[in-house]
């Protein structure tokens, strides 16, 4: 990165503020000038600058998708948003400014002291250089490239350019266009043929704080026969000042490759989290999205897999938890474009208080394909009377030698279950937590171990106060 983090800030200063340093601040609002500014600061090559400008025009010409999506989107005022802030100019605040409930959550989740400050935005970056360097060194020997997206496009243009924007075209939707215009941060990963990366690659360990940015852009390419697991986010609530997050994540699994992409996100309740994630699986390749969405004001995220090669496989496993005032609008897209491709979607959602969870799905099997199979299961759990859940799948399966099935159910925690546990001396709240954990348990098991432990604690925490 060009900028050096400023570690000598005076943390005793109260309210967070923006340094008036125009070299690293694109200002507020979005125009061609903003895009030029970002391209200048990041020293983008011309093709990226043109790509950004083309995306901006698309973004401006596309309507809000409110004909099917939540009208809450209309409350995003694009003119009031700051589209680029480099590290040195991240908002600063002191530990004392961090709200009590966030501190309490850190405590309960058992987040290490050092990480807490980073997550709370007190420190501009997380001091994990050692851990990151170790991983980088370990995988670097195998020829793995694991860098930020800016470094990726500058240092590895021959791989980057071939796939960038190919899985998710700029004009895919209004928010992918926005991301394409102003993206910064995110990861670029390339796994050479046959390399099986033992340790999960974690965005968490990357020292570049931009990685958690508003408009991150991640591109992962797994070459023939390689395997990788990537993890982003963490269970702790990320204390945010910016209200719009719009990431684009593209995965390419070449012949026989396997990619698992794990996301655990817990946004603060003021955030619009509008993410486009899609992967292309070539012959016998496998892409699996494991996704857990907690928090935010509105999350819209439908990870997808395009099964382009014979015997490719796509999978989405997702858990969504919508608390009071939150809307988790999540789902999956499975596009079967070759014979003998299989896909599986398992989605579980929990709505608490006035929370609303929505499943939107798309399953398509093209004409003249054989042996394609899709299985979709969506289960929703409603905790309170005013909780809400919706399911909107769209299934087009052509060809007489293909099969698909979709099932969904909606339930509440049975009074008998709670009564049974209460009889054995478990409080009503604890009993509810146990029941909810039981509901998602089979999916939580698919998460990496440290995540699944934290997830359970987090569900306990979210369930508190939902009874009575």
């Amino acid at each position, binding site marked *: 990165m060009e900028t050096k983090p400023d570690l000598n800030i005076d943390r005793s200063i109260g309210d967070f503020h923006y340094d008036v340093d125009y070299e690293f601040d694109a200002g507020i609002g979005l125009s061609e000038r903003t895009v030029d500014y970002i391209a200048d600061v990041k020293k983008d090559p011309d093709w990226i600058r043109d790509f950004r400008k083309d995306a901006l025009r698309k973004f401006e010409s596309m309507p809000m998708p409110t004909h099917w999506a939540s009208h809450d989107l209309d409350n995003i005022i694009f003119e009031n948003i700051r589209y680029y802030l480099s590290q040195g100019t991240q908002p600063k605040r002191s530990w004392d400014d961090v709200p009590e409930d966030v501190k309490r959550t850190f405590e309960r989740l058992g987040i290490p002291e050092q990480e807490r400050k980073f997550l709370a935005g007190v420190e501009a970056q997380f001091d994990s250089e050692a851990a990151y360097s170790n991983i980088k060194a370990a995988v670097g020997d195998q020829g793995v490239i694991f860098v930020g997206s800016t470094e990726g496009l500058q240092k590895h243009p021959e791989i980057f350019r071939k796939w960038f924007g190919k899985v998710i075209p700029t004009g895919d939707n209004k928010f992918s266009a926005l991301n394409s215009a102003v993206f910064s941060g995110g990861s670029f990963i390339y796994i050479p043929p046959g390399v099986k990366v033992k340790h999960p690659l974690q965005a968490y360990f990357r020292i570049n704080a931009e990685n958690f940015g508003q408009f991150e852009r991640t591109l992962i390419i797994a070459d023939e026969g390689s395997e990788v697991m990537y993890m982003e986010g963490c269970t702790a609530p990320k204390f945010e000042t910016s209200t719009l997050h719009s990431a684009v994540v593209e995965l390419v699994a070449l012949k026989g490759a396997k990619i698992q992409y794990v996301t655990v996100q817990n946004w603060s309740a003021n955030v619009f989290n509008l993410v486009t994630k899609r992967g292309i699986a070539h012959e016998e390749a496998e892409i699996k999205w494991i996704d857990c969405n907690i928090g935010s004001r509105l999350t819209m995220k439908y990870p997808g897999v395009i099964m382009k090669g014979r015997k490719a496989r796509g999978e989405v496993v997702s858990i969504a938890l919508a608390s009071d005032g939150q809307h988790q609008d999540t789902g999956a897209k499975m596009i079967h474009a070759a014979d003998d491709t299989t896909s599986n979607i398992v989605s579980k959602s929990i709505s608490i208080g006035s929370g609303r969870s929505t499943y939107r799905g798309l399953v398509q099997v093209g*004409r003249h394909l054989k042996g394609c199979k899709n299985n979709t299961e969506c289960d929703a759990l409603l905790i309170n009377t005013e909780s809400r859940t919706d399911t909107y799948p769209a299934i087009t399966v*052509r060809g007489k030698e293909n*099969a698909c099935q979709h099932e969904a159910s909606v339930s509440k925690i049975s009074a008998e279950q709670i009564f049974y546990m209460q009889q054995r001396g478990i409080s009503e709240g604890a009993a509810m937590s146990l029941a909810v954990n039981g509901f998602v348990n089979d999916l939580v098991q698919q998460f990496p171990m440290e995540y699944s432990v934290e997830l359970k604690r987090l569900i306990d925490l979210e369930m508190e106060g939902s009874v009575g």
Partner: protein
Amino acid sequence: MNSTLIEKHVTPISSNWPTWFAAEQKTALTDYEQSPTPTRRHESWRFANLKPLDLSAFVDAQPVSSEGRLINASSGLGEFSAKMVFGNNALLHRSAQSLPDGVIFESLESAAANHAELFRKYFMARPTDLGSSKFTALHKARVSTGVFLYVPANTTVTLPIEIFHWAEGNNASIFPHTLLICGENSSVTVMDYFKSADKLTALACGVNDLHLEKGSRLTYIAVQDWSSTTTAFHINSTNVDANAKCTALIANFGGGFVRGESLSRLIGEGSRSEMYSINPVEGTREIDQRTLQDHIAPHATSDLLYLNALDDRSRTIFAGLIKVEPGAQGTDAYQKVRNLILSDDADPNSMPGLEILNDEVRCSHGATNGPVSEDELFYMQARGIDRDKARRLVVNGFFNSLLERIEDAAVRTHLSGLLAKRLSVD
């Protein structure tokens, strides 16, 4: 667009209509002209083929060439309590063999005159909008006759009532209407047949409204058998009050492009609505069905099962929604669409949706797609049945599994016969 349909008849065909109705038709015509033509950007037209919505080729239906031929061809069940036959927007025949006292079974226009209060209370009084409000307005602007059935409280009509709607002539446009009102604790079965007198292309734009008051029971069967190039809109609205039960089955045997919308509103506690449909489609035929199970009252039940068997280059769209309103605790709602795929070129689209705003519910939905089982075909071929017939037998069995849900044995047998004839397995 649709100049031919708009220019004529701002006043109803029949002078039997009361004058106030002319004003309503005029308003409806303005609504039709001013409503935008749907685009696929509307969720309710997602996946839809919009070409058939250009109605400019259609003209007014002329009086039918032979009333006698159509009346004679209007035979359904052996035993029925009453019958009406319509041809090209005119009532051709009405007979009532065994209707209990107090049952009103009249043409719409005479009911509008003789039972104005009832008519105005129920005639197109409920919102039906699952996307086709423009075509509902067209229907209202152009409807000239139809069925008005009122069954008073505590009255049972034992034998089914049968209604036939015929379309005849090239590009004829017809506007069938069936309005059924079941008083408290009454019971009735109605068979509604839609048929073409020839193989020519027609436009049918029909509305049927079913009103079930407390404790009533209605079995409503629509057998749609328009010519294979006819464009048809069938817009249905059902209102079910406390402890009433409606069983509605729509069989789409014909039509080139059929847009069906069925809205069931469960407005009383303990009400039940069963929504069934069987759709054998082949050639380039297209059946586009949108449904809503709207649970407003607590402890109501709805059960939807739609079966499609798709051959050749046919298309189906099923978009269903179960909506559980905040006050509807104790809701029990099911929704299922099953597509049997007989050809690689067939195009089935399923969108089974749920919107649940209450936690005291039991709701589930499902959608499946699958081919005819090779094992079943092999079994029959081993017994000397050729492969093509074996396949039709499997389709017949697939649909018969739904017909078993019809309680009235005579109706069930009759439908099973019609189906066997349709699939050439009789």
